[in-house]
């Protein structure tokens, strides 16, 4: 055993029971949240669900396009409470994968929890056995000697690659699921020496089928390239001093693009039993680092500066052929959503949630001179998506979720939006004012090769009705409203990310 092998034991937590004595008694999230749902009905969407659900035939308004056949898979945290304890952060909930199947006979829905070892063990005992990313439970570790997979909730995204359906988290392995039954097959180990490695929730699949992904631990960034046939083509670990975590990235023809907020991790707090989230700090007004890695030789890296802020998501990136790298990401003024907003949501404290401020940032990097230009769009947005046919290439259209109007629209998202990034024109649709809108996913119409030809599909939780709808738009005419809505006979907790697999 040598010391070096413990350097990454930083992902291995063993919380001291003494350090967290009394934390159970002090847990007020569950009570506070349930009291708040009487005042703010929309919070009920985040009450969670504790069982698998299925609805074989959804009630449809409008008409499902004949070309739209296949399955929309979605993922998100869905179970938040056990034995009276409620998680302190939305990211901690167990992942539930939704499958919306579009066939000649209509639309069906099935939702199943990912059967991670954590979920199975906690189901068997009907209590939490792990601390979460944002929730320190007394005496319960977040991670173990084997890394974070024991805490893996597989709750962030679900992707199909080479016919393999995978539920994704950020800090550990992908979990493979049966695409038909959604039964969990187990963690994916791409190669024996990659066992238990972080595999992020935002892989990028290029039009030729190559899938890139990353995984971050402090000071190190793993890069994965998976061939179109689903076999591992490349896995390397880059040293990135100061890196703590990384949620998303972008690929262009030539580059992998990362934006790294200045992030501090206080190991002493972790050792004292605080949650990972509580050990994070973000120095105010520190510029973000833009890291550009050459796809052909991962050792070729350049760094640039971006304005201070925080981010979760990228839309797309492309090289213009004249030495300029262009990309877009959703720029947050601070890490407030992560640090305060989502904990506030979990205890039903809307007043503590920072006003939403994230905007789409369009970036151009002159690689020769190092000059970086940024242009912020005006709408408050999240969840950028592009036509999968232009990933890594020049894109004209960008689809996002947004909040419009007063009330809930200032706090959460109630609308969908398309930017024509060439003309600057916008095309938007606002749902019923009391709606919680998820990420909407672009689905290509294979009858056309034109970028944007297709549909935008996504879920919205209707607060007054307490039910979730699945909505289909003409992707280039959002303002015309949905051409079809399929209503679930129940509400689902609003999820994070998903993808469509054509039949």
């Amino acid at each position: 055993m040598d010391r070096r092998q413990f350097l990454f034991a930083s992902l291995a937590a063993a919380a001291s029971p003494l350090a967290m004595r009394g934390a159970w008694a002090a847990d007020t999230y569950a009570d506070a949240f349930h009291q708040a749902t009487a005042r703010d009905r929309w919070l009920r969407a985040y009450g969670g669900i504790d069982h698998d659900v299925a609805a074989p035939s959804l009630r449809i308004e409008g008409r499902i396009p004949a070309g739209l056949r296949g399955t929309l898979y979605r993922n998100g945290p869905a179970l938040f409470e056990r034995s009276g304890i409620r998680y302190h952060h939305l990211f901690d909930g167990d992942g539930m994968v939704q499958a919306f199947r579009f066939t000649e006979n209509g639309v069906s829905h099935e939702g199943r929890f990912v059967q991670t070892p954590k979920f199975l063990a906690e189901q068997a005992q009907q209590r939490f056995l792990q601390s979460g990313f944002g929730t320190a439970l007394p005496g319960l570790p977040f991670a173990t000697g084997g890394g974070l997979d024991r805490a893996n909730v597989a709750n962030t995204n679900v992707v199909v690659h080479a016919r393999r359906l995978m539920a994704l988290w950020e800090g550990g392995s992908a979990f493979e699921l049966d695409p038909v039954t959604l039964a969990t097959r187990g963690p994916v180990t791409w190669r024996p020496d990659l066992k238990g490695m972080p595999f992020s929730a935002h892989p990028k699949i290029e039009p030729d089928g190559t899938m890139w992904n990353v995984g971050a631990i402090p000071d190190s960034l793993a890069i994965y390239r998976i061939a179109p046939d689903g076999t591992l083509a490349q896995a390397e670990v880059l040293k990135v001093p100061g890196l703590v975590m990384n949620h998303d990235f972008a690929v262009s023809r030539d580059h992998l693009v990362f934006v790294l907020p200045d992030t501090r991790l206080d190991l002493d707090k972790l050792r004292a039993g605080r949650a990972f989230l509580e050990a994070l700090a973000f120095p105010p007004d520190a510029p973000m680092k833009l890291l550009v890695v050459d796809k052909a030789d991962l050792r070729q890296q350049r760094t640039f500066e971006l304005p201070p802020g925080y981010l979760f998501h990228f839309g797309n990136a492309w090289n213009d052929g004249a030495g300029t790298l262009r990309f877009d990401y959703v720029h947050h003024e601070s890490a407030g959503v992560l640090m305060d907003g989502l904990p506030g949501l979990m205890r039903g404290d809307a007043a503590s949630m920072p006003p939403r401020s994230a905007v789409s940032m369009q970036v151009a990097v002159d690689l020769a001179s190092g000059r970086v230009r940024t242009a912020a769009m005006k709408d408050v947005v999240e969840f950028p998506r592009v036509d999968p046919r232009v990933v890594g290439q020049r894109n004209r259209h960008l689809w996002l979720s947004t909040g419009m109007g007063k009330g809930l629209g200032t706090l959460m998202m109630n609308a969908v939006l398309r930017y024509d990034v060439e003309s600057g024109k916008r095309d938007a649709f606002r749902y019923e004012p009391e709606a919680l809108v998820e990420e909407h996913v672009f689905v290509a119409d294979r009858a056309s090769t034109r970028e944007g030809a297709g549909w935008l599909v996504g879920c919205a939780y209707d607060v007054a009705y307490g039910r979730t709808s699945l909505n289909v738009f003409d992707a280039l005419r959002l303002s015309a409203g949905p051409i079809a809505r399929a209503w679930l006979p129940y509400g689902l907790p609003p999820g994070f990310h998903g993808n469509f697999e054509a039949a």
Partner: protein
Amino acid sequence: MIRPALLATALAAAGPALATDVTFEVSGIEAPGGHILVVIYDEASFLKKPLKAARLNPVAGGKVSGVFRDVPEGTYAISAIHDENDNNKLDSNLIGIPTERYGFSNNPSLWGAPKFSDAKVSVAGGTQHFAIQLR
């Protein structure tokens, strides 16, 4: 009643002066294969050169125990790993995260590289017992 002469004989038979038997128990074993490797270090040898080592058969879901005999009085740290594939080391993946379970005396938090001071225990007189939880 024990007479002083007999008591002196009994103490002498226990081994060198000021040496101790260190017993340990390792829990948190999950898999049945391989071996549990338990190692005792002092500060100078910590994670470099074992002073004494034990190799025990695992009991899945159970505990194993053993003893280091005649440990001189002093300050030590004990590590335990479950060497599931019997290659005599704690395996790590490409990014450096251990992929086998391990633990230390004192059961310190495993965030970051454990320091000797996090795992150190005092050994003095008679028999001493330490429990190590694998994580």
